[in-house]
């Protein structure tokens, strides 16, 4: 597969005809180009590490569950590869739905837990909404352009039109549902009910980034459909900020990571939405590294803590988990975007490209949101790190002396830690010089960045970086009690370092409540959709189906019953009358036809 790195690969192979119906003829074809290869490398590379890790993580399961787990994981990898390799819309949808299915199966893996069962169903239904969007989008494309396969997108018209916008919006519904962007995001945090390797692979590194892949794959459509394209960026920006604010108040370590994933995918969306495709995909790669690292380290911690996920009950893990703690720190710093970790290069590439985009009224606002989100990212990551790993062990910590994870769970983590540290070297364009491997590699598919960097881009980059780091350190002051600080850690700035600001949550209790309830989206959907649906269903069943529709019949039947009883024996009465009517009708009919035939 790496072969493709040096040559321009573009293989479109057709296997058999899937269906033919009039002018709709659909081949089963797979497309291998640099974009699908890039995605394949992420899926198999990170996926391989995570599955290896899972060998250790799932060891305590029963044999049947163990087998079931790896079966589902393989179904997932197959489906995800199908998704990125499909050469036509229908098999894109097939892959799209099958990753949803494997996600459903794996979220509900612990099917004896009610929460897991409900979360799985929620994820499935939300994803089906996305599937329907994709299906309708395919219809629009076919009926207007008669295209069923990508075919290098020669069929996309040059100028914007209503139908192209409609198609782009419908595909965006699919992307938004799969990538847990607003407003179809509520399934992702609940999806953390699945085993941690699943969260790492499906709900961080690969499946949830499929929306970014979709926009990149269909970029000829989005490049023309300007309104839909801007919507992608706006949805991404809003979700990035929205999720980051929620992440600040979450106490379950996996849920913090889940909201952080939403937020980071928001960055990818705003990048591809602004037309900076290479930046979006580089952030996808980088995020796959550091978020998988974070989830797997968190999995090690959760194992060590006897399945406790509330990070307020951890504390003081630094030094006790000799390998996991530094790995988690590397992942956290990469998430914050600290130089020279991979997150720095990818996030700054995204924000720099957006900042520099000329002649676009939206870009500067998107950048502002991205910048604010970067600061918030520093803050919630810092909170997570300081609360879980720093200070003294919590009084309610389930395990006094935690054990480090076994080798099979550590080695993949360490490899990802290495990749998160040095991976940024493949694309250093955020600094204005150095390598541009990712950009060059994807150029044949998504093209080069259409605008030069702004002269002050580097200053902006440094500012973003600095504010992110300050927020990370600020969280230290707010969340580590003064009594637990190790003075030696920050000798030089003792005055500042010993400050203890009042927690913001005490100053703004209403804001705290709003964030803790995740802006009440679950409650809203429950109130607007789920309750009315159930109510209409049961009301319709009682009041309409059983009375109006059924009753009309019952009334007729009872009427004939009365007549039938008069005719004779009950059982035969109906049948006899039936035959009577039948024969009588037939005679009348025959007479009429005879009359018609002889006149």
């Amino acid at each position, binding site marked *: 597969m790496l072969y493709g790195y040096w040559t321009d690969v573009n293989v479109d192979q057709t296997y*058999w005809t*899937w*269906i*033919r*119906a*009039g002018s*709709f003829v659909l081949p089963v074809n797979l497309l291998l180009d640099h974009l699908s290869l890039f995605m394949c490398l992420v899926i198999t590379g990170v996926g391989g590490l995570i599955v290896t890790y899972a060998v250790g993580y799932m060891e*305590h399961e*029963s*044999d049947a*569950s163990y087998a079931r787990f790896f079966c589902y994981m393989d179904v997932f990898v197959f489906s995800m590869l199908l998704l990125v390799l499909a050469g036509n819309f*229908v098999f894109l949808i097939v892959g799209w*739905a*099958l990753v949803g*299915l494997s996600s459903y199966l794996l979220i*509900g893996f612990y*099917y*004896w*837990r*009610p929460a*897991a*069962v*409900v979360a799985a*169903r929620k994820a499935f*239904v939300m994803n*089906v909404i996305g*599937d*329907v969007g994709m*299906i*309708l989008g*395919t*219809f629009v494309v076919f*009926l207007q352009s008669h295209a069923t396969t990508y075919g290098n997108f020669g069929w996309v018209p040059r100028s914007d039109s209503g139908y192209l916008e409609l198609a782009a919006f419908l595909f965006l519904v699919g992307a938004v549902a799969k990538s847990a962007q607003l407003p179809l995001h509520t399934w992702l945090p609940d999806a953390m009910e699945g085993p941690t390797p699943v969260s790492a692979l499906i709900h961080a590194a690969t499946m949830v980034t499929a929306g970014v892949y979709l926009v990149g794959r269909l970029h000829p459509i989005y490049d023309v459909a300007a309104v839909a394209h801007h919507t992608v960026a706006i949805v991404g920006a809003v979700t990035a900020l929205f999720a980051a604010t929620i992440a600040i108040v979450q106490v379950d370590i996996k849920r913090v990571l889940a909201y952080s994933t939403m937020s980071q995918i928001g960055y990818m969306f705003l990048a591809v939405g602004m037309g900076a495709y290479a930046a979006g995909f580089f952030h996808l790669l980088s995020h796959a590294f550091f978020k998988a690292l974070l989830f797997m380290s968190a999995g090690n911690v959760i194992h060590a803590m006897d399945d406790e996920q509330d990070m307020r009950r951890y504390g003081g893990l630094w030094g006790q988990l000799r390998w996991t703690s530094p790995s988690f720190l590397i992942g956290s710093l990469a998430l914050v975007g600290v130089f020279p970790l991979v997150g720095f290069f990818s996030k700054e590439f995204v924000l720099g490209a957006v900042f520099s985009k000329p002649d676009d009224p939206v870009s500067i606002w998107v950048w502002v949101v991205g910048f604010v989100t970067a600061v918030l990212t520093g803050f919630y990551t810092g909170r997570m790190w300081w609360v879980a790993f720093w200070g003294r062990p919590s009084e309610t910590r389930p395990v006094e002396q935690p054990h480090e994870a076994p080798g099979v769970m550590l080695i993949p983590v360490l490899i990802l830690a290495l990749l998160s540290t040095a991976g940024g070297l493949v694309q250093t364009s955020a600094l204005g010089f150095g390598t541009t491997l990712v950009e060059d590699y994807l150029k044949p598919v998504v093209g080069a960045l259409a605008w030069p960097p702004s002269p002050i881009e580097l200053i902006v980059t440094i500012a973003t970086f600095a504010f992110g780091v300050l927020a990370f350190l600020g969280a230290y002051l707010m969340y580590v009690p003064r009594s637990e600080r190790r003075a030696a850690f920050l000798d030089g700035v003792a005055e500042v370092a010993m400050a203890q600001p009042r927690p913001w949550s005490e100053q703004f209790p209403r804001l705290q409540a709003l964030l803790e309830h995740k802006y009440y989206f679950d409650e809203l959907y429950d109130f607007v959709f789920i309750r009315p*649906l*159930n109510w209409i269903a*049961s009301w*319709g*069943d009682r009041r309409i*189906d059983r009375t109006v*529709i*059924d009753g009309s*019949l*019952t009334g*007729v*039947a*009872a009427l*004939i*019953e009365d007549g039938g009883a008069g005719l004779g024996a*009950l059982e035969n009465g*109906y*049948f006899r009358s*039936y035959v009577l009517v*039948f024969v009588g*009708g037939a005679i009348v*009919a*025959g007479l009429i*036809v*005879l009359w*018609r*035939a002889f006149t």
Partner: protein
Amino acid sequence: MLTTLWVLPVAGGLLIALLPRHFAKWTAVVVTLVELGLAGFVAYSFDTSTGGYRWVEHVQWIPQIKVDYFLGIDGISVWLVVLNALIGLIAVLATPASPEFRTSRFLALLLVMQGAMTGVFMSVDLVLFYFFWEAMLIPAYFLLWMWGEGGTFVAGRPAANVSRGAFPPQEGPRPLFASLKFVLFTLAGSLLMLVGIIGEFVFTGASSFNLPDLAKHQADPVIQFGLFFLFAVAFFVKIPVFPFHGWLRDAYLAAPTPMLLLFAGVMGKTGAYSMLRILVPLFHDPTWWWNWNGVVPVLGVLGIIWGALMALAQADMKALVAYSSLSHMGFIVLGIFSFNAQGQEGAVIQMVNHGLIVPALFLLVAWIQERTGTRDRGALFGLAPRLPVLAGVFLVVTLAALGLPGLNSFVGEFMILLGSWAFSPGLTAVASIGLVLAPIYMLRLFQGAMYAPATGELPHGHAGHQEAAAPALVDLRGSQLLLLSPLLALMFVIGLYPDLLTRVLTAATLGLALPWR
């Protein structure tokens, strides 16, 4: 050949009625196997190069009124004949062989019903069609009444409530009421159709009852308006189409499982098939105050939504599947009345799909009831660890039913919606809500029975001690798995290679696609 296809089950049925009951089941199996073999042969040897009818048998029947014995098979009917044969075999195999069940009489009626349905799918002459159409009703009536839940021949149940007390009985199973309701309702439709058949002959000036011939003679739009109504009501009831589904809940709930396979799996299809065969080609323009061709798809969409909503409300798993069937049939109607090749091919594919999925679902529900003694969704939970094989099979069928891409139902729904999108995007957008509701009710069904209840954890620990406090249940037996395996296999085959069906369909359906508007 075609005569053999419908005579064989009927003759087999009569033979079984005469034979000692020990031979009944095996005779029936042999008959249906041969039937399936013949149907398979017809499908296999089907010439895809041209359109039109194959294996035609055309002789004069009642020359005085120009009625012919005219059988033929084309790309549409061939798949329904095969489906009928397959489901017939499975239904026979699923029939319990016990003296108190009166197996031989049951199978005799079942085979006669199968033969009549085969006839419906093969008739080209409208009067012959009507003959078969009525003929399938009679065995259905007795099967529903005598063997229905709480019926005369059902072991361990009182044969009460036949003539005592209030009518209809308000509580408990009511097979007589159900069968009566079904038959009367259907019969009302049939009689209207009979009037329609005569009217069609009188008003079009055609010289025969042959469908291709009648299609060439279009009556005045106002006459068509009336005739369309007469035919449509019969088909609406049979399919059933919203709001003509009043018989559905009682009949499906009462129906004994083996009969239900043919009843729900195939008989509903006769209505949909007839729409495609009769309503669409015979009435190009049924317009007076409004155009029926525009009304029917709206009813289809209403059925999709209403069926899904009612499925959400059902506690009884059998009723849930019955209403899901109403929703799926709505898709088929929508596809037929989208008047283009995509929609109509999708409709035919979906007829086959539905004929595979619904029998599988009803079988699974029956087997769950057999093991646990209930099919109340609220009373069941946590069966997955106790019945792992059944849970796995159930999952596949559930996914097929909710239209998972890659499995068969997706193909049909995709093509139908593609066709109807060309016809009316707004209507299609509403119909696609059905696609979102389907996973909600199907997963409620599957998860409710198989996984943890909403109110507490299952006794299932971390280290695999799966032996729960509940008594052990017998998992799916090998024979039962074998019974389902052709259905499961076809769900995958049609999902991945629907061209197997469509390459035969293309020539046939295109002839029916009419430019409306």
